[in-house]
């Protein structure tokens, strides 16, 4: 019997979800994370979840893992010391960056400029120049390159990056540096910009290559350590990591290309939501992943999540494909406050985090948070984590009272105000990825997960008009579910930057096929049979002179049949949909991408026993909560005892091990066949 184990390591908890590929049965487990060495928490979780299922780690065939190790290395500045070799005249490429200063007019007065990821001291220039058509303008000089390498060697760099101007068109100069580096710095890993990212835009390409080099040692150590511990525990199956774009890659590949892991954490939630949506028969989903300090949102249309070509981490914008996840500083730990000068009620982005945390957690927090407001209002009634953890309601009340006093309003009004404002912030983030991209949110369901998502999903769905509001099965471990259920993926991209009139179908096809072969062989190397690999292409097209590309998906067959004229016709159609106008200018083919995908997991989700529509068997007790300006009677249910087809009228609270679902007054929740709660207006 084959088992898949999804493991998501978050800041506070490590979530595990074990899936029996034969029966669709699953087991979940949550254990505290061990930030100093995540593998400790992971191993204890693995043993616990295997014990629950009555198997041993040796029975796990696929270990699938979402991790923030790369993200944290960047955010905390703990990357390796990277030496950077650039074209003469470009030493300060990372120092100048894009010259952008955030914060609006006069924002420069208060902007702390971040330090470049490759130190300027460790950046050196070499002679030689490639032109904008890929031609050599001036040759490189070996003696000059050697001198540069010796300089970096003397400075003790731990990783080496080469990023030369126009190398995306011609990597010969970069390759020469690599050859000499192999002699002079044989033990230092080297990254070449034309290999990591063969695309136009020198700053972005350099940054991406440097970011990759910088997190390589940390990610490498992490992966090797984890692998050996899992092997010691008897796990012989494969180990894969979740990429930012929602696909999986082998742990070995991730050691080479860690920059693809920067959004690994949030990607798990989106792939999990995708799995849930498939089983619930919903095709269009907005996701709302509410954590302690922030909320991640994403859009899935027709069971395909939107992807973007950049990954944003902290102040860095790295060129690596990623799911289009927007993050807003609004979560359970967001702190509410009233500034002296304006007397406005603000919530976040400052957060109490896991430590000291909300006042209600009793871990030393003193400032009122969103969680405290939820406690005051009766939305978080009991203990979290299935009774092992009591909430300090009095403390939460005291804290929220300070807000009420500062505003001169009642306690409940202040608490509800905090919730309304944080919901509004989530609403704003959701608008960015839906309305602003030309999608009507009323055609989407809203799925809330993460510890606090199901508490807010009903209210936010009301703001969006996105129904049903979905509280998925196991909302607290949805990322781990996503890790466990997604497929292998790899891609390669190349700048093309030619007008259609200056190229032809054969040339484009030849390039695409070469790229397809490259990506297929990467998956084949992971042990995937050729007939299980699917290839997709994407072409970025724009009008000549336009600074914005429209990505078009296409397969070889269509391209052969309709030719490049078919591509431009589709572009015009898409451009008109997006921007309401077309132009007479010639078309330009900007970038080519090839994607190879592994097999889809064929698996029936576990079905709940059929109920009779009456949830009373799952009732724990009567309760009171604040709704529409008054305390109202409500009922608390145990999610584990709900049956398929049960109808839960609001206001109600459904609790489970790691999450609480709030069904608001005037709404009703229906339990579907696989255990999701679908909330709709009554």
């Amino acid at each position, binding site marked *: 019997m084959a088992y898949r184990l999804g493991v998501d390591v978050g800041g506070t908890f490590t979530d595990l979800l074990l899936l029996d590929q034969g029966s669709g049965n699953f087991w979940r487990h949550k254990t505290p994370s061990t930030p100093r060495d995540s593998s400790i928490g992971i191993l204890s979780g693995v043993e616990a979840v295997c014990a629950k299922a009555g198997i041993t780690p040796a029975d796990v065939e696929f270990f699938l893992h979402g991790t923030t190790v790369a993200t944290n290395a960047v955010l905390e500045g703990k990357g390796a010391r990277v030496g950077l070799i650039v074209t003469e*005249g*470009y030493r300060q490429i990372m120092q100048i960056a894009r010259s952008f200063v955030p914060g609006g007019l006069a924002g420069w007065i208060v902007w702390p400029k971040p330090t470049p990821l490759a130190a300027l001291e460790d950046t050196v220039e070499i002679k030689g120049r490639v032109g904008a058509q890929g031609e050599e303008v001036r040759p490189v000089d070996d003696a000059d390159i050697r001198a540069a390498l010796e300089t970096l060697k003397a400075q003790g760099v731990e990783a080496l990056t080469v990023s030369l101007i126009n190398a995306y068109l011609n990597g010969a100069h970069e390759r020469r540096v690599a050859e000499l580096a192999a002699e002079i710095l044989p033990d230092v890993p080297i990254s070449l910009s034309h290999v990591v990212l063969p695309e*136009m835009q020198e700053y972005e390409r350099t940054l991406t290559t440097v970011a990759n080099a910088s997190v390589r040692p940390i990610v490498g150590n992490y992966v090797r350590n984890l692998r050996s511990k899992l092997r010691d525990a008897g796990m012989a199956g494969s180990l894969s990591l979740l990429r930012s774009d929602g696909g999986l890659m082998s742990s070995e590949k991730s050691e080479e290309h860690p920059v693809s892991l920067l959004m690994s954490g949030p990607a798990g939630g989106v792939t999990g939501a995708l799995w849930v949506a498939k089983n619930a028969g919903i095709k269009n989903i907005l996701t709302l992943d509410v954590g302690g300090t922030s909320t991640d949102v994403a859009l899935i249309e027709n069971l395909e999540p939107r992807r973007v070509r950049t990954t944003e981490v902290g102040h860095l914008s790295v060129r690596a494909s990623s799911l289009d996840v927007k993050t807003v500083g609004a979560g359970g730990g967001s702190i509410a406050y009233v500034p002296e000068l304006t007397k406005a009620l603000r919530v976040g982005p400052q957060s109490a985090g896991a430590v000291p945390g909300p006042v209600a957690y009793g871990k030393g927090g003193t400032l009122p948070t969103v969680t405290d407001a939820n406690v005051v209002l009766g939305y978080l009634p009991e203990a979290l984590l299935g009774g092992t953890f009591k909430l300090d309601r009095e403390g939460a009340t005291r804290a929220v009272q300070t807000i009420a006093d500062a505003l001169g309003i009642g306690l409940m009004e202040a608490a509800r105000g905090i919730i309304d404002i944080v919901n509004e912030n989530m609403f704003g983030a959701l608008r960015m990825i839906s309305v602003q991209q030309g999608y009507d949110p009323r055609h989407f369901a809203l799925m809330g997960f993460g510890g606090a998502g199901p508490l807010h999903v009903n209210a936010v769905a009301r703001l969006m008009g996105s129904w049903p509001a979905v509280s998925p099965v196991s909302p607290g471990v949805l990322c781990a579910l996503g890790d466990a259920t997604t497929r292998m993926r790899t891609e390669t991209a190349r700048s093309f930057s030619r007008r259609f009139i200056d190229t032809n179908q054969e040339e484009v096809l030849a390039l695409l096929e070469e790229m397809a072969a490259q990506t297929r062989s990467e998956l084949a190397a992971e042990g995937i049979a050729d007939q299980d690999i699917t290839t997709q292409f994407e072409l970025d097209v724009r009008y000549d002179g336009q600074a914005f590309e429209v990505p078009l998906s296409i397969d070889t067959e269509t391209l052969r049949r309709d030719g490049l004229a078919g591509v431009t016709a589709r572009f015009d159609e898409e451009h008109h949909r997006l921007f309401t106008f077309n132009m007479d200018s010639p078309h330009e083919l900007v970038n080519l991408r090839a994607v190879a995908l592994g097999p889809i997991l064929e698996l029936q989700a576990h079905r709940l026993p059929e109920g009779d529509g009456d949830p009373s068997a799952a009732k724990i007790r009567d309760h009171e909560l604040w709704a529409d300006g008054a305390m109202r009677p409500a009922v608390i249910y145990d999610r584990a005892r709900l049956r398929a087809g049960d109808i839960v009228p609001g206001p109600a609270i459904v609790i489970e091990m790691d999450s609480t679902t709030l069904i608001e007054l005037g709404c009703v929740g229906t339990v579907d066949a696989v255990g999701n709660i679908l909330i709709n207006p009554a």
Partner: protein
Amino acid sequence: MPATIIQANATPFNQVTVDPVTLEVIENALRNARIEMDATLVRTAMSPGIREQGDAFPLIADHKGRMIVGQFGSYIGPFLDGFDGTVEEGDMIFLSDPYSVGGAISHCNDWLVLLPVFKDGRLLAYTSMFGHQSDIGGMVPGSMPIDATSIFQEGVRIPPVKIWKKGVYNEDLVKLVMHQVRTPAWCKADLNALIASCRVAARRVVEMAERFGDDIYVSATEMLLDRNFRAMQHLIETSVSEEPVSFQDYVCDDGLGYGPYKIKCTMWRENGRVVLDFDGTDPQSSASINFFLNENMMKMFFGIYMIMVFDPQILFNDGYYDLIEVRIPEGSLLKPRFPAALSGRTHALGRLFDILGGLLGQKTPQFLNAAGFSSSPHLFYAGTDKQGKWFQLFQIGFGGIPGRPLGDGPDGHSLWPGFTNVPNEFLERYFPLRIERYETVPDSGGAGLHRGGNGINMVYRFLEPGVIAIHDDRWFVPPWGVNGGEPGARARKVLVKADGTEIVLGNKLEEYQVEAGDQLRFITWGGGGWGDPLERDPALLVKELRQGLVTVDGARRYGVVLVDGAVDAAATEALRAQMRAARGASLPTFNFGADIETLRANCEAETGLPAPRQPVWHPTAVAAE
């Protein structure tokens, strides 16, 4: 004669109380709507100036035209005051002529769209956005001829007209306008983008009113304005003195050989209000460096600076305007008489920000920033390539950010909001150019405890013959330092011919012929320094020497002696002691460098350019030369 507002439903809004939570939610929603305007624009605009560099500005105003969110806003009031027409449902106003709107926008390159938002027949709000067009016709590519002597040379001039009139699109109008410009495809797309952004915001405003009720929405905007009024009132009382303070600075030249032009502002508090008086500012120029400054615009600049300098947490809007009075003399550089040319207004606009900084920080040096605004340095390069294809580049450059109370000024960054550089690989791919160097200039940031940011040296190699134009400033009068900090280095432009001959070019230059193979060193200014350079940690200079940001000689300005890449502690101590002894007991709040007469005397030797001559005020005097 003010505009006539025609409403099918003229019922006044009721002032109602709005609970603090709803108020906060509405404020958030407005902020989001404004962000959505920017996002819409970036998706749909086409010119690099707007798309890549972000030269466009949105706002949402209340039904009286007061900006609730936005940044370069505040022009609707002056527009309504001067608009001799009606404002009706289904209308959309389009304009670009500064003289038609009291300087509410300041040169014809900025195309502005204004959408009155009606709900149930009642005027509820305005949304508006303007953006810099790459070309609007006129005598030079890019339409900003520094040597223009009248606005008629600066391209198409659009008075307030209705691009939509009661819901009917005026296609002929757009055709007529697009016929005047060199880049109609870009202009059309950019205009569409401005319109789309305003429409998006209008929809959001109506949705908000539907969600909360019209009266609550309107009352909430009143409260937001009032909140800002109270916050600013408090700031003014605590940070602006009743005793007048003055500050003056200069635009270096006018591109016709005359300069510098003085801008002077005096500020004091009187009966709880601030007066900003520009008496003493030089008369208008006969060239295009005039900046038609609208009084409300100045209030806005002042407000933003107050907030950023003293309390960055305040959300900015128009609510405090009654607290400020602005006086600008007629016929001055800041209020030129029609038909003075205006296209080169960026230099005076930049200088205004340095002056504001100098005014506000004078009594509170701990909040004072050094100077660092030149302008938006422009390079234009146009011609016909070997394939017979017309190319036209308009690029905005950046210099050094000033030393700040917070720390060093960043090297080679933008003082303007939202601006970014254009990737050099993009330039090389799409224009006949090679960018041979793109680096900052060591030592160009003024010395200080917190040094000024270095300026940029960008070396363009032109691969096709063509014409270039340059607009930059701060080449003659340096950016000053504060609290003991020194001035930053000045801007400089040098053309290197294929045979190595170097020609120093003016920083305001039009229609200059370049040959294939010529290299242009486009060097921008460094930011002024902040605080005593002798207090700067010598270890930082060691680091910056290795980084190539300062030189061994440059380190001596900090009294630091570097030998073989390390600090010579004894020599440093001796040098610092000697420098301390040589200077006065107290450090000057401002260090402007040499006075104007000395700058003039040394100009040729120091900059390679003849000194600008004292401006001649009568316009005909220039024409007669």
